[in-house]
């Protein structure tokens, strides 16, 4: 079955295709693809590491606050990298901090994602000519999503989380796991 005809996969032919289908055999049960189910669970509970290094951290706090309320997407902050799915790099990374970022990333369990929030994390931003600032966190850890702004507004961070959910939804974990088993 090609992707275009598959009701379970989002495709141009089936932009709002049903994500789950009701099974006729057992009322109340749902049938879905394993990939879809795993992705659905994961994208609905993105726990992000509270990694606020600079100004963006304040906007990150405001985003977690009552008005924007990231919790409604299942995204809540964690203080420990061991419990986190997402490394949200909110702010400038200096060379003194760089090794710590690598360590935090290494401490996170797979599957893990990295969002570079703000100009400093993207490319060094205002401080890219400085002697002590890393020109972009992607020189240290792999980045999945770049969020521009100095600092980005809470709405922008909100959008980033939604985009990340989209990205997570396209993962094919079942196929990957089959190869490993």
């Amino acid at each position, binding site marked *: 079955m090609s992707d275009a005809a598959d009701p379970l996969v989002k495709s141009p032919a089936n932009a709002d295709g049903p994500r789950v289908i009701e099974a006729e055999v057992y009322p109340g049960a749902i049938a879905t693809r394993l990939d879809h189910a795993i992705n659905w669970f994961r994208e609905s509970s993105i726990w992000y590491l*509270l*990694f*606020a*290094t*600079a*100004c963006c*951290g*304040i*906007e990150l*706090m*405001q985003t977690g*606050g*009552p*008005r924007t309320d990231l919790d409604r997407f299942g995204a809540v902050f964690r*203080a420990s990298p061991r419990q986190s799915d997402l490394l949200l790099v909110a*702010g*400038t990374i*200096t*060379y*003194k*901090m*760089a*090794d*710590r970022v*690598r*360590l*935090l*990333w*290494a401490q996170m369990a797979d599957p893990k994602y990295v969002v570079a929030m703000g100009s400093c994390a993207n*490319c*060094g931003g*205002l*401080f*890219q*000519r*400085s*002697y*002590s*600032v*890393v*020109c*972009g966190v*992607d*020189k*240290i*850890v*792999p*980045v999945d999503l770049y969020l521009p702004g*100095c*600092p980005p*507004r809470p709405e922008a961070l909100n959008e980033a989380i939604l985009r990340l959910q989209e990205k997570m939804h396209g993962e094919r974990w079942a196929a990957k796991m089959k190869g490993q088993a």
Partner: protein
Amino acid sequence: MTPAEIAARLRTRFGDGAVVAVQDALLDPTLELAPERLHEAARFLRDEDDLRFDFLRSLAGVDRKEALEVVYHLLSLPHRHGVTLRVRTPRDKPSVASVADVWPTAEWHERETFDLFGIDFAGHPDLRRLFLPDDWVGYPLRKDYAPPAEYHGIVTTREGSLPVTRAQVAGRPQVQVAMHGAKAEELPGYMRVNMGPHHPATHGVINFLLETDGEIIRKASPDVGYLHRGIEKLAESNLYIGTMPYTDRVDYLGAIFANHSWALAVEKLLGLAVPPRGEYCRAIASELNRIASHLIATGALAMDVGAFTPFTHWIREREKINDIMERICGARLTYNYLRFGGVARDIKPDVVDTIRLWLDHFEPILREFNRLISDNEIFVRRLADVAPISAADAVGFGLVGPNLRASGVHWDLRRDAPYSIYPELEFDVIVGKGFRGVVGDCYDRYWCRVLEMVESMKILRQACDKLPEGEFWAKPKVVKPAANEFYAAVESARGELGAYVIADGTDKPYRAKFRTGSYTGLSIIQHLSPGLMLADLVALIGSLDVVAPEVDR
């Protein structure tokens, strides 16, 4: 004493040649000394009854190309007068006597100057790098410094390397982070804990190296520099106005204050006056920002000691201030609002009405907040009598702002060294009285901030009523101050935020230095922490309202 009297007094003691002529009436008298006489002069200045320079405002290194220079800005809190001390030392073997035993706050300032200029301070108790990693090569604020092309495998330019991939990072050898562990035989019976640099209660990326005996701290030494962005070096390669956005990021919780001190210093160098409406716009933005900053300070303190609800209340209120600030200057956090000679945009009448409405809304909310947390038995017990700072310590360690006033010292730049339009406004200076425990404890620092919000609301109401008509920006044709220097300070939410600017006649500053409140606030922790419980350290850090970029700059 007037500057002339101080100059005369210093001439009789140190000889005519040592005292530099005061260039204009605004500047403090300047004393230029040979390095070997510095320590004697420091004691003299601090201990003489009629001088009593007990407060070291700022200590700045300057690279004068042919020699290095250390500049001390001193202040006398009892007599309310100032003096500037200047010492030159040769470039190839720079050494100056340490004054850390005269003013304890100098310990950190000297470490910073050693770190960035490579000046050796003889007699310093613990001279090592403060901001930069221990294996860093060179002294970045020297004029001839060239940054390395690579550090720990990271290319230091924006170009020159592709983003790393997952496989590359995974393939790297295990990260060797210099955790400050000690061998067991070095610390029998004690444990060493790294609290930070990534820790929710340290308010940004600050590391505390703790030596603990169970729950009791034997020693806590802050390890800073994880957010050292080199703003002072960047300022040297920017136009004067180009540094304004950088000042926002010196203190992102109170961006207006750093804007203001930078603008004040450059305006003084230019001899520029600000139209009254511009001054009022500045005051309104400043006081709104002060409330916003104190909201975070008090809310985060409550969160640190275990109460999450007040924090969400304050975030909600802060959003409303952010909305107003957005209408005033177009940004939520990094305002870049001030200009030399005024402000970038006028405050429109409808915004003034919004501010009044918000004040009416906020007053009952503040009462509700106090019912929620300020009088909460558990909260009070977590803070009262914890880590009191005596007035002498507060002055010696150079604490400023609410931290200094909580210890019972009357010093508010808005009243005692007036700038802008603050002399025209009525407000009280809140001083710690031992509201729930002893004077200068964590609760006093917290409560001073809550009461300061009330004072800021008073100021806002007056400023909104008095806001005069007219120009808001007297735009200078060219910003190119003549060779001179000035130290300007404003009362920020975290105390004195000073900008020391040296102009050399070009359109870029020769040297810019920021003196910030969090920096000295953090330096006292090492002195206070022995004997504290681990949980009390969190309360202490929270009550000092430390913000990492202000420490590291």
